[in-house]
């Protein structure tokens, strides 16, 4: 019976579930499913930077925003094909990620945290004040997408696109982490001095971590713009970073599958939290505290402990969990 919930089966079930969803569910459920898929990208990317490379950076929501703004604006102003706009969005988010990485490489721990908090706030300020480009605080509408001849419904089109991208990029991340890059990240996380003495080029691998996670964030941002049909600055504020962090922590820091579980779990939870009304903040804060205090390894650590087949390479050592 326990074998039924091994990782292979759960992932297979998840794949089928998300594949069947658009055919059977109502538009509300489809939208929530799409959000969950998009957040998988975001949280897997963030987990590489945060959980594997150990860089405490708050810039993620800003990069997510750059992806969304670029994609949306290119679609709106130049009427670019959505696919091309998305690629451009990912490109600019990646470049921004690299630009953040340059100074950030010199900083560690809390210095890095503070610098990236400031960067995130400054980016938000640019989104709200650069009126001639970003349309300021009011944001802008993205023209409706067109997925003909595949499907007449744009929401299903974006859903399918997100599904395919997740299908491609989660295994990509998985492989990256099992490669030299992933091992270098973990070495850096555990001790920069030790990593350096092993001949690991710290600067280079840290930069790779920023760039790869920015790519994931940018992709998620571009999809987000297409999904919502509107881009507004408040979607990218620091509260959103906290939500993203929460996904990684609740799922499991330093675990690809943890990121996936966290994203799906938290999107579901946010829907449940609607019922809490005025107690939402209390419930959300309580959840974060509960997780870090009681199950610091996140959901995936419980799965690893009680179910077979959830072991991962390069997992965090026990004393971290």
């Amino acid at each position: 019976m326990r074998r039924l919930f091994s990782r292979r089966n759960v992932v297979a079930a998840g794949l089928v579930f998300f594949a069947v969803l658009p055919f059977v569910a109502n538009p509300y459920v489809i939208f929530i499913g799409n959000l969950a898929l998009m957040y998988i990208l975001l949280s897997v990317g963030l987990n590489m930077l945060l959980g594997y490379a150990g860089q405490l950076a708050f810039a993620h929501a800003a990069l997510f925003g750059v992806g969304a703004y670029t994609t949306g604006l290119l679609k709106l102003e130049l009427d670019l094909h959505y696919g091309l706009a998305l690629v451009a969005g990912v490109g600019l988010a990646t470049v921004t990620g690299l630009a953040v990485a340059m100074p950030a490489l010199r900083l560690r721990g809390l210095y890095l945290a503070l610098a990236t908090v400031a960067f995130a706030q400054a980016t938000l300020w640019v989104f709200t004040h650069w009126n001639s480009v970003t349309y300021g605080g009011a944001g802008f509408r993205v023209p409706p997408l067109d997925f003909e001849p595949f499907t007449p419904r744009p929401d299903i089109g974006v859903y399918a696109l997100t599904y395919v991208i997740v299908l491609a990029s989660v295994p990509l991340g998985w492989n990256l982490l099992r490669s030299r890059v992933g091992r270098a990240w973990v070495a850096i996380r555990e001790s920069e001095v030790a990593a350096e003495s092993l001949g690991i080029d710290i600067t280079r691998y840290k930069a790779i971590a920023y760039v790869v996670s920015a790519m994931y964030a940018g992709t998620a941002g571009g999809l987000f713009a297409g999904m919502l049909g509107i881009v507004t600055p408040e979607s990218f504020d620091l509260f959103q970073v906290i939500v993203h962090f929460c996904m990684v922590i609740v799922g499991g820091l330093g675990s690809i599958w943890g990121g996936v579980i966290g994203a799906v779990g938290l999107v579901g939870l946010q829907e449940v939290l609607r019922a809490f009304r005025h107690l939402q903040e209390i419930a959300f804060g309580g959840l974060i505290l509960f997780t870090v205090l009681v199950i610091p390894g996140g959901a995936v650590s419980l799965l690893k402990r009680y179910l077979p087949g959830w072991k991962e390479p390069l997992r965090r050592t026990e004393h971290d969990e």
Partner: protein
Amino acid sequence: MKLSQLTATVGAAALAATWISIAAAPARAETGVTDDTIKIGALGVLTGPNAKFGDTIYNGVEAVYRQANAAGGIHGRMIEYVREDDRCQAAEAVGAVKKLIHQHQVFMIHGGACSNASLAAKPEIVAVGVPWVITASTASSLTDPVHPRIFTTMLAGWMESYAQVQYAIDQGMKRIAIVAQHDNWGRSRYDPLIEAFKRQGIEPVADEEIAPDPSDGTPQALRLQAAQADAVILILFPKAAAVVLRDTYKIGYRPFLIGGSTVGDVGVFASNVGIPGAADKLHAVSTIGYTADDPAMAEWKAKVEAAFPNDTFNIYHMFGIASGQFVVEALRRAGRDLTRESVSQAMTDLSVQTDPYAGPITCTPTNHQCHNTAAWFGLVDGVTNRVGVTAVTR
């Protein structure tokens, strides 16, 4: 073994997916209407700092609905009012509106708080053809150009801004300046304000900005003073407005201040500022025609506070009451054969004099920004008084 496991999981997943879809039962004669109920959904912010633009207003709406239900309902049908939180976020609003339409299967939507969230929700509402009466979102693009099923009972953002500029000119002001917060709320008023200046053929002598949550407004006050503005238009929430008032007063600069509906209850706001005399030269435009403690509102005050014991009756409830009275009248006119089409038709040509507003809510086939009577409030001998009423046009 392996294969059977896979089949089992696939089966379970498919079952779960189908189970979710059951919630989307096929539509009846008219969605959300049964023989004895009408289900109406509220979309808007229910929690957090902006909840007054959503939840508080909906309490006002619900007070009207309860009154209608107590009187036997509308053509024998009781109104059920369900609320979904958009947390003032575009992404949440899309989820919330889809939930209302496809999960709750509401007949119509009556609500809408933060403009950006409402704008994000609009495409879905348009696609399904759900009638929508907006209670608070002011972005003009929600209702202009006219959509046959979307109406607003709130002054549109441009109306307040146009009224503010017009008022300054009518009061004989020559050098008019602006202080605005540039968040999404501020932008929906700031852009039409600049447009209104252009139409009048004048330039603001200063255009200053302040954070929505500032701790100091001295730089703004000094720059306004340096620009020798004789009137200052405020596009500010009470928190920022209080800081600006305090610091202009501090440096001994006393321009004529023209506030928006956020400080519409001038007396309450003046007591918040807490400096005697600081709000003497403040006039504020407001959506509503009375203050919350006006005797004309006493009956509603009692009803709202009885229904929602945690609430202190305030101007936001009054927005909801006016809007609720309008919708109840529309439902009545639409008759027993209630459809989305029939209620939209009823609203398209409807004029209702509500209790809290100074003028009637009047929709016409060419104008769905149905409320355009702005009232002006100011302090007279330390008491809030209505100092004028204008019908806004452009």
